[in-house]
């Protein structure tokens, strides 16, 4: 058991307090929107990293889980009047079902074959949802605005503070759960199967079982956040919740920050999400695409400087500070696990 006064715990506590107070000091809706996007992409990046970083399956199909989560909770809410709080779990559950349906037939695929298969599956899903009129088809769905019971309907119209705390809670739950799972035996099996699949399999590790567990965990949290996003934007159509852009953004954020670590995807989201929002606002007026152009350039440059992600760039100075604080060397080396 670590002492509660250790600098690492104190630093995390400080960050938590700052984040809890943030919406009370910065009330502008844009400032809160940026942080909501950070939390959302951090959760999505973490969920991706469970299969991308730990099971070595480069999934470009995350947006399919996201979209299924969003559509499930929205349809339950609109057709049956079920509160999104329950719909979120249903959305996560449907995403898990989809994940298992994808996981079985692709169980033999590794590396680039899995990456391309997941990309193809996403395109198929998007086309099917676009042509499915029951769920709105290409027109999309607008969730009716209800004002009288914001917490029950998960709709906040005066201020974004409610959304802020909900997504922050989701991120914390995602972080703690993935951390607990990945440092348990499941995580060890996953990493063993990642490093030496044949050796691990010969020692009795069930490749298919652990792969499906990883996909299910990742799908659940992605679908969950998808349900939240539907309530936040109150509109969904296939390109926005199931588009390839979303998938790519999720993968980029996780790898940009540092894949295979707990803090990497969070760090990636903390850097890239504000950058995407700010550049959209500042440069969006100058013409189409300029903001994303810079994003692409930034990614290329980072890959050339530090292929392991931003977390490796800052690990050195952070460790140095930690050493000054007289902590055992290497506490934050790549984070846990």
């Amino acid at each position, binding site marked *: 058991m670590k002492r509660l006064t250790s600098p690492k715990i104190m630093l995390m506590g400080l960050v938590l307090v700052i984040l809890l107070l943030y919406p009370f000091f910065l009330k502008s809706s844009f400032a809160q929107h940026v942080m909501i996007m950070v939390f959302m992409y951090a959760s999505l990046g973490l969920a991706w990293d469970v299969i*991308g970083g730990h099971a070595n399956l*480069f999934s470009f199909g995350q947006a399919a889980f996201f979209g299924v989560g969003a559509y499930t909770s929205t349809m339950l809410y609109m057709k049956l009047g079920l509160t999104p709080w329950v719909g979120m779990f249903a959305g996560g559950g449907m995403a898990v079902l989809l994940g298992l349906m994808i996981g079985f*037939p*692709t169980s*033999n*695929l590794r*590396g*680039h*074959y899995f*990456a*391309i*298969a997941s*990309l*193809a*599956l996403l*395109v*198929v899903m998007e*086309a*099917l949802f*676009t*042509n499915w009129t029951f769920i709105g088809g290409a027109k999309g769905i607008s969730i009716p605005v209800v004002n009288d019971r914001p917490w029950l309907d998960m709709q906040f119209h005066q201020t974004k503070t409610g959304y802020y705390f909900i997504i922050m809670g989701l991120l914390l739950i995602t972080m703690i759960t993935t951390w607990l799972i990945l440092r348990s035996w499941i995580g060890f099996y996953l990493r063993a199967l990642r490093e030496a699949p044949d050796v691990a399999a010969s020692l009795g590790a069930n490749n298919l079982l652990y792969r499906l567990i990883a996909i299910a965990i990742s799908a659940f949290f992605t679908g969950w956040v998808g349900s939240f996003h539907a309530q936040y934007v109150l509109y969904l159509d296939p390109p926005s919740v199931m588009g*390839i852009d979303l998938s*790519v953004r999720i*993968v*980029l954020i996780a*790898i*940009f920050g540092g*894949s295979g670590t707990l803090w990497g995807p969070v760090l990636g989201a903390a850097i890239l999400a504000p950058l995407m929002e700010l550049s959209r606002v500042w440069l969006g007026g100058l*013409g*189409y*695409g*300029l*903001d*994303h*152009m810079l*994003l*692409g*350039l*930034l*990614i*290329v440059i980072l*890959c*050339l400087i530090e*292929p*392991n992600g931003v977390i490796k760039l800052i690990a050195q100075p952070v460790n140095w500070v930690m050493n000054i604080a007289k902590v055992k060397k290497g506490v934050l080396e790549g984070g846990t696990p």
Partner: protein
Amino acid sequence: MDLFLEALVNGASLGMAYALAAIGLTIIWGVMEIINFAHGDYLMLAMYISFFSFSLLGIHPLFSIPITFGVLAVLGALTYLTIIKGVLKSNVLLSQIVVTFGISIFLQNGTLFVFSPNFRAIANIPWLTGSISIGGIFLPKTLFIVALVSLITCLALFYFIHRTTTGKTILAMAMDREMVQLVGVNADRVELIAFSLGIATLGIAGSCLMMVTYVSPRVGFLYGLIAFTAVALGGFGSIPGTIIAGVIIGVTEIFTALYIGPEYKYVAIFVVYLLILIWRPKKGLLGW
């Protein structure tokens, strides 16, 4: 029955263009085991070059092939020297995937910024309007030329890879990298040639596709995905496999559009791909 044959011929011709777009990917993959996710975006650039040489300079798309080929060869070489070489050295698989995505985002949004998201197509290509008839089956002249050019290019590439010294070195690199370096081959130079050649074939494919379809900054993603599918379907690194897969994809696309509905044509392509992937997960049709 005539309709069936006509769809088959049209699909196969379109498929040849897809095969041509995919061959560059298979060469690059074979030599350096890097998935170039920006592949389709280079194709999109070639299509723009072909379009503007026609609309601004009046150059027939068929004769813009040398221009697109040359420009893309230089672009490919520059990309390899500035970006790919360094990332390959780092030996981190994830960053190799991400860096090409970065290039893709950059190219896609760069063209969006410069050329706007409008769709552009060449309407009436001089002396290629109308269609020809082969034994009662009608085929648009443009599609016929596209199939012909693609076929010639594929054969030329096949000859280059299997019969010339440089080509054989590329093939050898794909088979056993260390051994090739051991006998004194400059691996960096071979990689440069392979990457540049792989991108340059897209120049030909771009000029061809410009004759039969439209271009916008977003088309790159779709053609890129079709090229990946063709490569994975045919087996990574196999040129004949890629050509067969390209034709299968073209025929699937046309048949689905004809008998099921055009909105499902890409669904069908990827379903066929996934089925073959499940059937032969490691090799595709002809991979080794």
